[in-house]
């Protein structure tokens, strides 16, 4: 995620003020979201894993991928309106139905000096 964002020349941060840099103009809110569902097989394995507890790696990966995708879409939107940074980024996750979740990333697109 990190490297992809750097290549895009878009700065993503959850700050309102970036030290040493000034915001030239605000371009409004940008967002990106994705809905992901669990793989039935992986879900079954996770169910077994649940007996002994611990980290569910497949789910961690799933959520990570979803978050990357949401961030990528947000950055894409920011780029399309001519921003070079997205500030005050927030993540939020909601489960829609059983086994499916929506990941949302949103922030303010700005042009920085």
């Amino acid at each position, binding site marked *: 995620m990190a490297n992809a964002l750097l290549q895009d020349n878009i700065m993503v941060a959850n700050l*309102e003020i970036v030290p*040493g840099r000034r915001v030239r103009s605000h371009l409004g809110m940008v967002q990106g979201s994705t809905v992901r569902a669990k793989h039935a097989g992986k879900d079954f394995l996770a169910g077994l894993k649940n007996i*002994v*507890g*611990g980290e569910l790696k497949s*789910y961690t990966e799933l959520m990570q991928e979803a*978050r990357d995708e949401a961030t990528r879409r947000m950055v894409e939107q920011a780029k399309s309106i001519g921003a070079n940074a997205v500030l005050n980024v927030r993540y939020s996750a909601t489960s829609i139905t059983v086994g499916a979740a929506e990941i949302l990333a949103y922030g303010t697109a700005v042009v920085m000096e």
Partner: protein
Amino acid sequence: MDFILNFLDVFLFFGLLVLGFSVGRWKERRHYKSIREREAKYANILAFAVRYPPDVVTPQDCQLVAGSVVISSDYFKQIVAGLRTLIGGKLSSYESLLDRARREATLRMKEQAQRFGATLVINVKVESTTVSGGTRRGLPAMEVIAYGTALKPRVSPTTQA
């Protein structure tokens, strides 16, 4: 033989209970050990929940860093918690679970910050979500994410640090 078949579900229940207790406990200890080790390793990376950056004059490079983990409870904890809800009070079995998840997520965030080359992460937010969906026996799995902005002084010819 009939006896075993008649009480198969009871045996299964206790089997799972013992398995969950022993393996879950072992895994928790191992996890805590690794958490402590890595916390010492990343002690030089500071994470703050302050919203505004410190008063510095040098321009900073910043980047969003995040760490997340999905963690599930073991069968034993689940049963204990289920019984505990009858009388209410402190669910210490789940407390340790979420504590582990939160520390793990923070550590992963710090790991990413280190890869970026930063030693300071500010505006850290920690959020948790249920990912279980409450299917079947209601797998209690939680996702914890920690994210913040990593700051590192910009090294450029114009600013002699």
